[in-house]
């Protein structure tokens, strides 16, 4: 580190002890990160699909069908690999447990796929047992387009690049397959508490 600029604090506050993973800073706003233009899929064209490891569609919901699934309100901390964290964020979504309920599979991995082409890979165990949601509301309102509307994956125990915006489904895989960032230097799993940011971390 070279020059320090006294009086420069950026937008963030000092983290409270024990609440924030190593190397992270708290922010008051909700930064928008994106790899491309904001998708604008109309709700009548939207669906969420689960494709099993044979390539067959194991489950599919249109928007009204998806919204009829049991949803829950959750409060979670989120951590972005670009070093910002937000504590106590409120979301509403369908647990991935519910989405995968009744899907017969021996797959251990999944690839989330999204409008715009983004993908991210996860171990199935990181998606189950109350660890992940398909979220459609944030802080009491519908998701905003830049934050993933109409629905995004939410996997708060991993870095936020795994919480894929504009998600359209999960492809179940017998073998792990790196997604958009995992194939270009970002860690395959991305546990913020172990600072798994890049390959080899």
């Amino acid at each position, binding site marked *: *580190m*070279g*020059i*320090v*600029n006294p009086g*420069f*604090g*950026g*937008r963030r506050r*000092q983290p409270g002890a024990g609440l924030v993973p190593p190397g992270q800073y708290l922010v008051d706003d909700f930064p928008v990160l994106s790899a491309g233009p904001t998708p604008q899929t109309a709700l009548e064209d939207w669906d969420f699909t689960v494709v099993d490891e044979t390539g067959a569609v194991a489950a599919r919901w249109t928007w009204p069908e998806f919204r009829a699934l049991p949803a829950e309100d959750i409060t979670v901390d989120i951590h972005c690999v670009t070093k910002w964290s937000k504590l106590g964020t409120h979301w509403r979504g369908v647990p991935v447990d519910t989405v995968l309920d009744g899907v017969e599979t021996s797959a251990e991995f999944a690839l989330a796929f999204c409008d715009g082409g983004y993908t991210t890979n996860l171990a199935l165990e990181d998606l189950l047992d109350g660890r992940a949601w398909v979220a459609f509301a944030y802080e009491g309102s519908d998701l905003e387009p830049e934050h993933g509307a109409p629905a995004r994956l939410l996997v708060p125990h991993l870095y936020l690049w795994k919480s894929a915006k504009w998600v359209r489904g999960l492809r179940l895989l017998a073998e792990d397959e790196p997604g958009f960032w995992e194939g270009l230097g970002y860690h395959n799993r991305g546990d913020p508490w172990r600072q798994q940011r890049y390959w080899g971390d």
Partner: protein
Amino acid sequence: MRWLVGTVAETVPETPQAVTVHLDVPEWPGHRAGQHVDVRLTAEDGYSAQRSYSIASAPGAERLQLTIERIDDGEVSPYLTTVLDVGDQLELRGPIGGYFVWDGGDSRPVFLVAGGSGVVPLMAMMRHHAGLGSEADMHVVYSARTLADVLYRDELERLADHPHRGVTITLTREHPEGWTGPLGRVDAALLEAVGWPAWARPRCYVCGPTPFVEAVADALVGLGHTPTDVKTERFGPTGG
């Protein structure tokens, strides 16, 4: 390309929202009109943020000048425009970018179109034109919200008082009393009225917020200018 250290020699308010920072950079290798620098700020706890700023000064100027517009909820510009003071140091990297540059090597007319703070790299080109004593014809079309937002207003007037340089300012949110200049957005009609026909093959440079740049570039191509003669630099939604 490594990080250099510049020391603030002077900070000059340009408008209520913008400040030009004059830097002494001992290792500065020189630059071309239109290029930019990356500035990196580091907090005491190690947190750092980077932004790009176009160089406002002409090549060969004694000091490196960056004109920064304060974005009210920005992270870096409030610091650079309100906290940074004479004697403070800044880390910067550059000069960067060989695409959006004008070197003054030929006599083709030069048509510069600026939206808001997009005028900064074009001002470097105007200043370079003056420094060279260039006889190429150069004209700036500059779109600003109000007269108070116009950067370098006096200097632009002075530079434009010259056989080979001109400036057209259009205001989009204000109609000052006695204003005889254009009002409203830059459109094909204005570009055609103050610019050159396509057969004159002007070099066009368009800089400002992304929607502005794309509308103007489309208009220029629509007027017949060859796309490769229209160079663009997008500053994002808020214009840098």
